């Protein structure tokens, strides 16, 4: 028996994701998990550990190294009536499955006028910061945000990861669920040379048992502030927060959590209050999701803006292996942008 003073239960991102899969699979026998190495081994990041043992090989199984086949088979399973949760081992590997996502999963409901749907959630670790080189570090979220019919979700902490993944799996539309792998085991402030802090010291690692949802399309104010608004998601929420704390800036950091559908109301309210907006993402700059955010902010908040909307992003190069920390949009790049915004 635990007393009333018992410590709350804390999980890291991997454990939270694993629990979301387990909880939804217990409640819905139509949910199946498939992907490279997800079965007996439990996934290269351990996100599906124990699931095959618990739910059997009919519901959790390995696949050929064939992303087109993984997504294509998942679309067919969805048409049958299952609710597949395929894993693409790295977001960088998703491209062979793009036609099945863009032309098929995203379009079934529309082209069949609702006769067939693709209730699939494609989980995939994404982003850099783990010395993955150019094929294990990319952040391709803008490509998916550009596709009508897809939802794109990016959690930044264990609590959201579980609640968003449950909401994504229960959603009847196809969802791309990108997991920032740099923060699987602890939030990352961008100071790569400092020791990693584990999730258990972070408020958002308190994860309730059982079923709960974080609704898609809802952003969250991580901090309240009036000097400027920072729009970010995934790893960059933590990096931006650390920079603002270090600088003693009273910033309002908005964690978008899902980029499609986008919570425009929270963005609009915050930017109208602060009058200044910084957008931070790790992905490359040109036609990145920051471009869309920047356009939306000026469309919705132009007469409240006191300075041009600023973007801090990865550079428009492939993700370099040895120069990872020169590439990463870390504290220096963010700090410089904030200084410029606040001086205007």
């Amino acid at each position, binding site marked *: 028996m635990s007393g009333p003073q018992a410590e709350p239960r804390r999980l890291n991102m991997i454990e939270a994701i694993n629990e979301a899969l387990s909880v939804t699979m217990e409640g819905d026998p139509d949910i199946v998990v498939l992907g490279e190495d997800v079965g007996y081994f439990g996934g290269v990041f351990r996100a599906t550990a124990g699931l095959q043992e618990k739910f059997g090989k009919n*519901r959790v199984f390995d696949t050929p190294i064939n992303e087109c086949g993984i997504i*294509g088979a998942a679309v*067919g*399973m969805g*048409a049958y009536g299952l609710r597949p949760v395929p894993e693409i081992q790295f977001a960088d590997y998703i491209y062979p499955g793009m036609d099945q996502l863009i032309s098929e999963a995203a379009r079934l409901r529309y082209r069949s006028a609702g*006769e067939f749907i693709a209730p699939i959630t494609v989980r995939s670790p994404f982003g850099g910061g783990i010395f993955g080189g150019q094929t294990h570090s990319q952040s391709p979220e803008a490509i998916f945000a550009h596709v009508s019919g897809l*939802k794109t979700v990016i959690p930044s902490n264990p609590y959201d990861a579980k609640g968003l993944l449950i909401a994504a799996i229960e959603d009847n539309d196809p969802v791309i669920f990108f997991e920032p792998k740099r923060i699987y085991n602890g939030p990352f402030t961008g100071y790569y040379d400092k020791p990693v802090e584990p999730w258990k010291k972070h408020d958002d690692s308190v994860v309730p048992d059982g079923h709960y949802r974080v609704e898609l399309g809802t952003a969250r104010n991580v901090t309240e502030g009036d000097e400027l608004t920072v729009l970010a998601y995934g790893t960059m929420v933590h990096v931006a927060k650390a920079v603002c704390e270090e600088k003693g800036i009273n910033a309002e950091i908005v964690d978008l959590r899902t980029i499609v559908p986008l919570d425009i109301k929270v963005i609009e309210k915050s930017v109208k209050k602060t009058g200044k907006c910084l957008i931070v993402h790790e992905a490359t700059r040109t036609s990145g999701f920051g471009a869309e955010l920047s356009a939306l902010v000026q469309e919705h908040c132009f007469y409240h803006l006191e300075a041009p909307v600023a973007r801090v992003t990865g550079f428009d190069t492939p993700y370099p292996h040895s120069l990872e920390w020169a590439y990463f949009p870390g504290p220096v790049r963010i700090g410089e942008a904030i200084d410029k915004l606040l001086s205007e």
Partner: protein
Amino acid sequence: MGKSPVNADEARGNKPKLSLHVPEPHYRPGDAVDFSHVEITKAGDQARPDETCDAKDTHPLCLDLIRVLGDDDKAHGPWNPRLSPDTLRTMLHNFALVRAFDERMHRGQRQGKTSFYMKCTGEEATSVSAAMALASDDMVFPSYRQQGILIARGYPLVEMINQIYSNKGDKLKGRQLPIMYSSREHSFFTISGNLATQTPQAVGWAMASAIKGDSRIAATWIGEGSSAEGDFHSACTFAAVYNAPVILNVVNNQWAISSFSGFAGAERTSFAARAMGYGIAGLRVDGNDALAVFAAQQWAANRARSNAGPTLIEYFTYRAEGHSTSDDPSAYRSAHEREEWPLGDPVTRLKKHLIDLGEWSEEQHAAMDLACADEVKAATKEAEKNGILGHGLHHPFSTMFEDVFEELPWHLKEQSEQAIREREIKWPEGKKP
């Protein structure tokens, strides 16, 4: 210019210079056609292994050609499905109805009633006879030339025409290119214009059926041209790995728009022979032989239902008409190919077989053709009450934004309002777009 090392060519041995092979069809426009190089087997000569045999026992059949209907119009050998005269007449009627439908829809496109149409002339058996060998609730994942499946499954012609006209009766709300049907009720998956994507989906559906311990199987159709797509390799690999209860039908009609089958690898081996590399069952079948098509599909269905795994079937046939109403085949192939095609016409062959059995006559056939033409004409008139393409009788503007997602998000709501505003400006009261 950089200088190559002296004697580098010599060092590699006395070989000719490398040269690229770009396939070229046997005949181009105006050429006389001689198909004597196409090996035609004797009907009835091909062995029929048990449906649950080892996949390798079928592999000799991948380079053979399964035929039942002989030049004598009789059914021969172990692949004879021994269908009743009633079933054969139903099949022939389906053929005739498909052909009448194709004729009328093609003409309708020429008359400006719609933007696009695709006939399946000469390939009727590959969809009709195959569909008749499946259960009506086995899930099919067709490509774009399998209208015969819908007709064999009794899908109303009016619904097909509504879709072709993109009119207000179109269940797909005018969103899809003509002939890209969908009917969940008839276990007919929504057709994609992106080729071969349906093949791994069919395998996934079949895997789901196996996961659930269901008894239904899946079947998919693809042209030989798009069998070159990676998706088809994905489908074969997944089908083999999970022993999925699925049938992979490759309709080898020799032409992919203007590219002959050589551009999909036909100069090297048969399409059925792909099965050998995946270790799955494979059959190569005379696609203009209705009985052979039925028998092969039935064999593969029985195999799938016995948990004995997938089958890849190549139907060797000929695309007698253009690719679509947007295509002019006289620009790239000899017009004599159609008349010289050594496997004849599937409708004529089945008709002659029924006559030979004493179960049909030329008079009955002519009457049936007339009745089919009338039936299609009546359905066309009925569908035209719902409008033809571009004449205003389409779905309301708001439907453009529905079904992108289950619920309409704010940004699509905004865009929907824009479209409605524009409508009032572009087409004021009284005028129709």
